[in-house]
């Protein structure tokens, strides 16, 4: 009887215990699954630079293409289906990787490119058939990551080199591919060490992964037991490959200031500046070695210890026979090769990424950007970005050295766009290029100074009955009085007055007094209307001082304003994104080329000719140190009060660039736009082999010879006579005294020829 009751209690007790264990297990099961799923499926948006499209005539020198291929991780003289290139004859043979573009997948293929005179001469496929186009895969330039400083570059298992996995398994968990989540021998060892009072070691990769799901590194028996159950549960639900992939994306591999380096993808980027698939055996072994103690074996702080650990990993990998003796010794003989200055973010171009992120946020939910694995194709041109970075870095270092104004040193920002389409090709937000901090290109609104002048002259030239490039302007002392405002008496940069100067010269020499008089004559509001039509949206004060640039704009806003001039009066919103697709490549959204005509072609032609004059004979003559005069670049310097801001804005036939240099705290930089910003611009553009700025002449424009002495009609008999563009009928009628009867006759004949020409054109259709 007693015995039966005992058995009943026992049975009941066991049942309760069983239920408790089952409930606990169920609880753990839910937890482990939700943790695992959560980690596997939060995919950050991946962002790509523009793909390099090779075609006959493309102005790109061979070394630049080689550099881009190396940045993409193409191996020189490599092997396999794709991802390598080799020099052949007068060009390159490139095994282009397959890639899924917005307009569909592009298979791997081999391309032969030849170069001549800094441009692509010929393009052929493997069979020697001429190719119209060859598009390389685009450079990944970063992602938009989940909150909490958990930067991550998720990798797929098939992207991870086999030698990395071999090394990992050899060192951390030799029976990984056969065990059920735990290793009995390891467990026995752990039990022994438990008796000795310390719980350690014996963790399988699965257990290590589970450990990562907890936030605290507690080391109790209970935790150990829980981890064990969860590891077994994980193995029940997921296969080895899924577990390994998640492990590789979870593993903690060091610290970058306040940012934790989680995952092999980010570690490859952080320590070697590479995508994971390009890690060598030696590099893989180093990372695997760090798993045991990322701080202890930090290759930056403890290189000797890290090297020793790496070689141990290599030896243990060799013992498993997964690498050959030669591979092992070669790897052991190689240097650590870690980045000397570790990158500050996951993207080499954090400033550009901020612009992309802002444009994306208009159309997408922040949560989707961080978890849906969207693929974002941007307009960034790594070659342009590189040229901008080199020019700015070099010049800033030089100015800091020359000026010795102490810390913090000079700052700078650069924006480069495609002159026709408004695509942003490069963006620099500060001298610390890799640091995703304050973005001066987007967020530093600074007085623009003389950069606003072209708007004043554009407004004037829109009224050809009053103003032409030859109209004399008055640059004598000027006092502006208006009710409710302080009296305003602008001065010139050289503290002198220049009397009567032709309009084009007043702009070329950036005379403040003549410009102030001109702007107040035509009306501040009318000028500001045109500034707005040029694309500036920020509210501006309708004061006379605004005419001389007492208005704060960011470099990006200035770029938008000059873009409209570069496109001949068609406003094109600056764009950083071309396309967005799902992770699988299904197109979601395009950001199409859009233009809007904001100005008539004639005044645009005139203001551009005047801006070419600034470079040819005005304040930007210094550009001749970098760019040949035949390129007929258009540009404008800008310098603000006490030289706090140095600006240069200009465009060639293919690119528009804005450069700003100054101090964050508004100290006087004692550098003018021509002395500080212009050299950066010139050096950058020269490195990009610019196209000449060639303006097609609108129908309503005629060229008239002008005598520089009098500003009247000249001709061959006038010394130094210049041909200037005028809106038809607006050129001065009166002849200069130097002009002879012959000039008048020649002009009459020219006019007749023009008439005959247009009559014939109409007759013959072309």
């Amino acid at each position, binding site marked *: 009887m007693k015995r039966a009751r005992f058995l009943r209690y026992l049975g009941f007790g066991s049942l309760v215990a069983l239920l408790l264990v089952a409930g606990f297990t169920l609880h753990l099961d839910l937890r482990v699954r939700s943790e695992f799923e959560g980690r596997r499926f939060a995919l950050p948006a991946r962002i790509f630079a523009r793909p390099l499209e090779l075609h006959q005539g493309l102005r790109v020198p061979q070394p630049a293409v080689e550099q881009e291929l190396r940045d993409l991780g193409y191996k020189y003289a490599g092997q396999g289906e794709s991802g390598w290139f080799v020099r052949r004859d007068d060009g390159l043979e490139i095994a282009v990787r397959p890639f899924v573009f917005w307009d569909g997948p592009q298979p791997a293929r081999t391309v032969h490119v030849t170069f001549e005179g800094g441009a692509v001469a010929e393009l052929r496929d493997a069979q020697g058939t001429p190719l119209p186009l060859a598009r390389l895969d685009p450079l990944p330039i970063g992602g938009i990551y989940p909150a909490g400083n958990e930067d991550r570059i998720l990798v797929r298992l098939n992207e991870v080199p086999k030698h990395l996995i071999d090394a990992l398994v050899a060192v951390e968990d030799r029976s990984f591919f056969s065990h059920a989540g735990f290793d009995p021998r390891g467990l026995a060892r752990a039990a022994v060490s438990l008796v000795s009072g310390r719980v350690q070691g014996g963790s399988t990769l699965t257990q290590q992964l589970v450990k990562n799901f907890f936030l605290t590194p507690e080391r109790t028996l209970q935790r150990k037991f829980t981890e064990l159950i969860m590891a077994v549960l994980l193995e029940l639900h997921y296969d080895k490959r899924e577990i390994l992939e998640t492990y590789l994306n979870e593993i903690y591999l060091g610290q970058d200031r306040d940012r934790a380096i989680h995952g092999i993808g980010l570690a490859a980027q952080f320590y070697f500046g590479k995508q994971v698939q390009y890690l060598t055996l030696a590099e893989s072994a180093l990372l695997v070695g760090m798993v045991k103690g990322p701080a202890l074996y930090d290759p930056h702080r403890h290189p000797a210890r890290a090297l020793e650990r790496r070689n141990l990993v290599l030896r243990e990998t060799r013992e498993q026979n997964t690498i050959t003796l030669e591979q092992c010794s070669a790897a052991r003989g190689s240097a650590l090769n870690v980045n000397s200055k570790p990158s500050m973010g996951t993207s080499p171009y954090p400033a550009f990424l901020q612009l992309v992120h802002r444009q994306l946020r208009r159309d997408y939910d922040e949560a989707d950007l961080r978890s849906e694995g969207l693929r974002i194709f941007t307009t960034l041109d790594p070659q342009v970005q590189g040229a901008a970075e080199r020019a700015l870095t070099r010049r800033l270092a030089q100015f800091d050295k020359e000026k010795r104004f102490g810390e913090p040193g000079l700052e700078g920002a650069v924006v480069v766009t495609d002159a026709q389409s408004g*695509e942003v090709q490069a963006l620099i937000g500060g001298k610390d290029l890799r640091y995703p901090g304050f973005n001066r290109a987007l967020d530093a609104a600074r007085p623009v100074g003389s950069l606003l002048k072209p708007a004043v002259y554009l407004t004037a030239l829109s009224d050809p009955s009053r103003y032409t490039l030859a109209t004399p302007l008055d640059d004598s002392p000027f006092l502006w009085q208006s009710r409710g405002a302080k009296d305003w008496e602008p001065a010139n940069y050289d503290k002198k007055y220049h009397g009567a100067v032709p309009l084009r010269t007043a702009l070329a020499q950036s005379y403040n007094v003549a410009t102030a008089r001109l702007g107040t004559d035509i009306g501040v509001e009318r000028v500001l209307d045109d500034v707005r039509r040029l694309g500036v949206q920020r509210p501006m004060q309708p004061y006379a001082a605004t005419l001389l640039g007492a208005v704060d704009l960011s470099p990006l806003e200035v770029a938008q304003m000059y873009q409209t001039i570069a496109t001949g009066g068609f406003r094109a919103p600056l764009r950083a994104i071309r396309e967005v697709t799902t992770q699988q490549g299904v197109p979601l959204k395009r950001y199409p080329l859009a233009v809007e005509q904001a100005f008539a*072609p004639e005044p645009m032609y005139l203001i551009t000719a005047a801006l070419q004059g600034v470079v040819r004979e005005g304040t930007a003559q210094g550009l001749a140190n970098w760019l040949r005069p035949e390129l007929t670049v258009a540009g404008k310097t800008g310098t603000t009060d006490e030289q706090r801001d140095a600006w240069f804005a200009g465009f060639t036939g293919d690119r528009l660039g804005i450069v700003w240099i100054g101090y964050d705290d508004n100290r006087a930089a004692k550098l003018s736009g021509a002395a500080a910003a212009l050299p950066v611009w010139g050096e950058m553009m020269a490195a990009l082999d610019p196209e000449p700025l060639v303006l097609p002449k609108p129908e309503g424009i005629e060229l008239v010879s002008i005598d520089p002495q009098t500003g009247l009609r000249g001709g061959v008999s006038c010394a130094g006579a210049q041909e200037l563009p005028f809106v038809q009928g607006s050129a001065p009628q009166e002849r200069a005294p130097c002009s002879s009867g012959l000039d008048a006759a020649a002009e009459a004949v020219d006019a007749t020829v023009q008439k005959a020409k247009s009559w014939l054109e109409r007759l013959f259709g*072309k």
Partner: protein
Amino acid sequence: MKYLVVLLALLAGCATPPEPGPETPPVTEPLPEAQQRRESVAIAGLMESARSDTAAGRLANAAASLERALRIEPRNPRLWQELARVRLLQGEYAQAESLAARPNSWAGSDSGLRAENQRLIEQARQAAR
């Protein structure tokens, strides 16, 4: 066209006194034609795929190909015109109008091209009403 050149040469040759220096300032030099012609292999392919996409109603793809081509030859008036035509089909009338106006300054003496642009502009304006 040949007649025109000969006639112009005659007119210019007999009437204009020999001029020192460049006849026009650098600002008005015509586009380097050699370069334009060299590029056209790449352009032809993209235009072809844009045309077949348009015919098949894949207008977004057609526009993408044309934009790709415009990155290669940003001043090719035919590409702008083609893109204007696609935008018109997409019902983007304001864009169609602007895009058709865009190449007029580069169309030079090609009056056929200009006339077609004008026709597109009119069409876009009417459709927008």
